């Protein structure tokens, strides 16, 4: 058992097929996976599909997990990222110009305050979607997923200096983009 991995015990129980553990694993990790996939893909529906695919792999692999080789959460992020890459690649191949998707958000009527928050979120989502993929990935892993710089760099297969460089460029681009973008009433 890997004492450093906070998911190891739960994963072992999932591997033994304990229904309560399965449920607990979904509740513990689903939000995190959706957060990653939705910010990488910009589409809620696809993010949910990715999350489901990740869990299928979890169920399949849980009985074979070898503690100590990798943290489960890191592996989970790796699998989810690979699935996101596959979808982004397919998207580019199928419709190279179809990159300006409306970020995941509904257009339902909402009170003014809520609308304002949603609009701001949508502006950030659009700016995030416009970042080069590696910058977006670095920011999503380090900022939104709250992985350490070391974990994010390891997942991306780069050094920490390279990760910091990507983060700096990502944040500069976002600052410029978000500062320069007028607040439009037609955002809703």
């Amino acid at each position, binding site marked *: 058992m890997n004492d450093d991995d906070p998911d190891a015990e739960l994963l072992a129980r*999932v*591997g*033994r*097929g*304990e*229904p309560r553990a*399965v*449920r607990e694993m*979904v*509740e513990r990790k*689903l*939000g995190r996976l*959706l*957060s990653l996939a*939705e*910010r990488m893909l910009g589409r*809620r529906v696809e*993010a*949910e599909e990715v*999350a*489901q695919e990740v*869990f*299928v*792999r979890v*169920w*399949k*692999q849980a*009985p*074979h997990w070898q503690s100590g*080789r*990798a943290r489960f959460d890191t*592996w989970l992020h*790796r*699998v989810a990222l*690979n699935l996101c890459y596959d979808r982004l690649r397919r998207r580019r191949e199928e419709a190279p110009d179809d990159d300006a998707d409306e970020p*995941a958000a509904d257009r339902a009527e909402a009170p003014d305050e809520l609308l304002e*928050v949603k609009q*701001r*979120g949508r*502006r*950030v*989502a659009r700016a*995030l979607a416009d970042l080069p993929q590696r910058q977006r990935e670095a920011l999503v892993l*380090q*900022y*939104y997923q*709250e992985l*350490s*710089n*070391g974990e994010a760099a390891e997942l991306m297969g780069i050094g920490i200096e390279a*990760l*910091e*460089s990507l*983060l*700096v460029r990502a*944040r*500069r681009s*976002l*600052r410029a983009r*978000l500062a320069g973008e007028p607040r439009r009433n037609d955002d809703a």
Partner: protein
Amino acid sequence: MTPERFHALLDACGADLRRWPDAERDGARELLANGPGALRAACAEAALLDRTLDAHEVVAPDSTLIERIAGAAPSAASDAASDAATIEPSAGALPSAVSSARRARSWWRGAGFFWPRAGWALTGLAGAIAGALVVSVALGDAGPAAATDWQKRATAFTDRGADWSEE
């Protein structure tokens, strides 16, 4: 920590020191408290961007999605049932039986994932068939002592060598 390093990390990680590398956090706090005021101004500016980024929220998963995903997981009972159904007839046929059991489980998983309702119904049917087999083994012959050792069967494939951490 030098002011240059402070600015570099501020530009990369934002104003919340919890996102900074562990080893550099104390030095940053020290510098922030005792260093030039320009550092605090830069921090306030970075915090503005952080707050803007935080506006991009992801809606929490709803219970339907949670149920669908949890429902696609194989239960210990259905796994054991499919193992029992394939392995029981002959202990000597274990390798191919194991392979069959694995295929069977993959099939169940696929069914559960794409057609949750059908998956549950078929799982129930498999459970009934396997139950009948187990009862017949328990009553009819002196099958292997491990005939009902579900746990052991469920981990029969743990020596699979794939380095799936790279998946």
